[in-house]
């Protein structure tokens, strides 16, 4: 009993074990992924053809808002925290996270935050309907009453993220095995270390901005109300000071995942390890000085506009370095294409396409045409879906045999990949076209000129959704009846996590390993 988990529900409620908590994070984020996906399918069903058929415009706005919030805060971020919980201690040879009780707490407040957020759908006046960016004064003076619950939910999510980040930083800086110097850490650990600092820097900013909203709504202040001497644009500056680092929070750990997988299946060390670390750090730094590129049309003075344009274009440099390093890692390797590798290669290609549209969006004069159109929707879905979601999926296939000791079905895995790959491109590639053909985003109904692209996008979305149901089936089947996995699992895998048995014992590295 002393070294095994408790039985029943209390195991999960009281656990301080990083593997248990990691699993809970991952399952929770998977549930949120489906919830956010259902919201997306409501959107795509309504947009299948012109005219209003299924929902009313107000509910449509609730769907776009909730889809964004649930996917960003409920699916992507907790999934990466789950991966960090499982993998960071095992990768650095630590027995557990540095602050196990806080770890339990940072997970367990999340389900309450999202239950509260989801419950707004059933409140009088409906759920938040002002977009996941919740620009004031639409989200303050003109918001439904449920905005207060939204604010509280965001506070809780922020607290959870901050605690999670402190824990990750404390673990990485204090609990590395002897010999594991910083520049020997796997890149996933590095990217999470940097991400955790980003989170600690910007989540309080988000908490601040929602608190100012709360004050405006309930306590008569006018932070964002022009009629009271406030400034609606201030909201956007504060929001995007959080929001831009936030998008890198959702992609840096993905870089780490892919940097682990590509070398394994190319059977060749990662090319340019130290330049990858420096590139990650540069991206993190730049993320703090580019926020106003989300606001090129708000009327920033010319000099400000130029500064943010140049700074944004600069991000292409370290990002390019990463892509070139991955391609060079593949070069002259001996590659095999198991499911994690397929997802990782798709990540590199499709994320780069998202990077290209990002570069186009960085050019301020042209951004006047792209801003708030479907071109932007295409752009950020190309970085988030094949970026964050594909890398999380790749990570699950890659480490699942280590987590549960059983191997997934390769044929089913590859089927999942091709369905998801096709679904994603059919959904989001046409959005470039409808956006350039000037379809604004966040509209529930549209002119017939956009009908063809929208119909194609909707078909793709349902295909993508179906592919994720297959993913769920594959995972359950693996856990229930997968074939026994070896300890090494992958021929080319290197790193401490592969030196422990499969499935990984409840406690690993109680005695620290020696790293040469």
């Amino acid at each position: 009993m002393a070294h095994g988990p408790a039985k029943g529900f209390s195991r999960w409620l009281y656990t301080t074990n990083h593997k248990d908590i990691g699993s809970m994070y991952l399952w929770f984020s998977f549930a949120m992924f489906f919830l956010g996906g259902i919201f997306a399918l409501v959107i795509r069903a309504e947009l299948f053809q012109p005219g209003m058929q299924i929902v009313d415009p107000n509910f449509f706005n609730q769907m776009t808002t909730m889809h964004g919030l649930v996917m960003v805060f409920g699916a992507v971020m907790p999934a990466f925290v789950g991966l960090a919980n499982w993998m960071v201690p095992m990768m650095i040879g630590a027995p557990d996270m540095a602050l196990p009780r806080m770890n339990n707490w940072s997970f367990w407040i999340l389900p309450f935050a999202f239950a509260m957020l989801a419950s707004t759908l059933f409140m009088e006046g409906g759920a938040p309907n002002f977009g996941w960016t919740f620009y004031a004064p639409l989200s303050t003076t003109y918001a439904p009453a449920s905005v207060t619950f939204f604010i509280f939910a965001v506070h809780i999510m922020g607290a959870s993220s901050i605690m999670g980040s402190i824990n990750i930083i404390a673990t990485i800086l204090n609990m590395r095995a002897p010999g594991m110097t910083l520049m020997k850490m796997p890149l996933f650990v590095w990217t999470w270390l940097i991400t955790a600092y980003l989170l600690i820097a910007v989540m309080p900013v988000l908490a601040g901005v929602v608190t100012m909203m709360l004050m405006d709504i309930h306590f008569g202040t006018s932070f964002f109300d022009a009629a009271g001497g406030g400034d609606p644009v201030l909201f956007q500056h504060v929001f995007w000071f959080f929001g831009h680092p936030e998008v890198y929070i959702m992609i840096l750990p993905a870089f780490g995942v892919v940097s682990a997988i590509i070398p394994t299946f190319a059977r060749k060390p990662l090319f340019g390890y130290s330049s990858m670390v420096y590139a990650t750090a540069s991206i993190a730094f730049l993320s703090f000085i580019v926020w106003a590129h989300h606001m090129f049309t708000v009327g920033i003075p010319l000099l400000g506009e130029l500064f943010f344009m140049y700074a944004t274009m600069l991000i292409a440099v370290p990002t390019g370095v990463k892509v070139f390093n991955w391609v060079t890692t593949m070069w002259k390797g001996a590659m095999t294409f198991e499911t994690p590798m397929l997802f990782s290669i798709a990540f590199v290609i499709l994320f780069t396409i998202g990077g290209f549209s990002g570069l186009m969006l960085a050019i301020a004069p042209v951004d006047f045409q792209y801003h708030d159109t479907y071109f932007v929707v295409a752009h950020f879905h190309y970085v988030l879906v094949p970026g964050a979601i594909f890398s999380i999926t790749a990570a699950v296939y890659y480490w699942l045999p280590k987590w549960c000791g059983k191997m997934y079905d390769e044929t089913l895995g590859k089927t999942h990949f091709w369905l998801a790959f096709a679904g994603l491109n059919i959904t989001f590639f046409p959005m470039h076209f409808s956006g350039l053909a000037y379809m604004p985003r966040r509209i529930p109904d549209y002119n017939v000129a956009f009908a063809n692209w929208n119909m194609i996008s909707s078909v793709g979305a349902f295909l993508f959704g179906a592919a994720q149901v297959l993913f769920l089936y594959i995972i359950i089947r693996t856990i229930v009846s997968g074939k026994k996995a070896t300890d090494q699992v992958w021929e080319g895998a290197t790193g401490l996590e592969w030196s422990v048995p499969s499935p990984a014992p409840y406690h690993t590295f109680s005695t620290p390993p020696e790293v040469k």
Partner: protein
Amino acid sequence: MLSIFKRSLALLLAASLPVAAEIDPWQYNLTEGVTSVSQNVYGLHMFIFYICCIIGVIVFGAMFVSMYLHRKSRGVEASQFHESVKLELVWTIVPALILIGMAFPATKSLMEIYDTDNAELDIIVTGHQWKWQYEYRGEGVSFFSNLSQKSKDQIYSADAKSDDYLLDVDNPLVIPTGTKVRFLVTAADVIHSWWVPELAVKRDAIPGYINEAWTKVDEPGHFVGQCAELCGKDHGFMPIEVKVVSPEEFESWLGEKRAEAAAIAEAAKQTFTIDQLLEEGKVVYDTYCAACHQANGQGVPGAFPAIAGSPIAMGDVGLHMDRVLNGGVGMPPFGEQLTPVQSAAVITYQRNAFGNNMGDIVQPVDVVQYQQGQ
């Protein structure tokens, strides 16, 4: 460099020349538009796109070659090289140089967009939930521009939509050719964004701010656009229509608009019967109020209060006028947008319809007096 993309622009122009009003259901690219700004923007867009394509071909090409040649099934042995400072420097410096090459034309184009000096005509564009207001500064002309009734009727209908569905309005903005027009963009309630793609003008309309944008169109034409910033329920239903006409036509159109305003002022002096007011009031209600308070006056619980049994519609007339004319509690003011006759009619209608049966009448002159007394 500019000349390169101007030439490619001319080529593309010849290849696709779309007529403004014609619908192309497979349109996949940005419009090149009709102003020097929009054409520069289009050229820049294509220039960057081509650079991305070239980089894409090189990077993805290398990946695919590698995926073909360097696979284990071909019996290759993996090399173990993993570092090259020289390579890292190359792919840091070369992209940086390409970016500098992009920054020059981008800066030039941006400076042109920001040059709002020496405008010959100022139009104040005000975003409201969910319509646009255009005021011709110093011309005594101001009006609202709503989604056309034709489009509204099609939203929930199963019939085929017309080509200009959701892109047509009741009162289009009219501007003269060959004139530098400056738009002073602001908003009355939440943030909107005024966007006409063919003019390459997009500016956020923000309460408390006046943003500047400009255009100069040389040929007469008809252009459409939409609100680009989420502004609430009917964000998708507040299009923009711009008619560009010759300066002579523009002057006579201004004259007509002034005459209309005079006629409205004249009508406000008349007295109407309750039946006349109720008839007009229902039309006004369905056009302006029903979107939120619903056609049956029941509202939407938690979002929009009901008119039926409303303490305002069944309370003091002065407070009722105040709410309709000046707005409040999330409701936009209608005093500027409705004529005194319309305001009087809709207030009378709300006090007597949906079982409210107050039996009182508000005349246009009451509205005028109320507004003057403010």
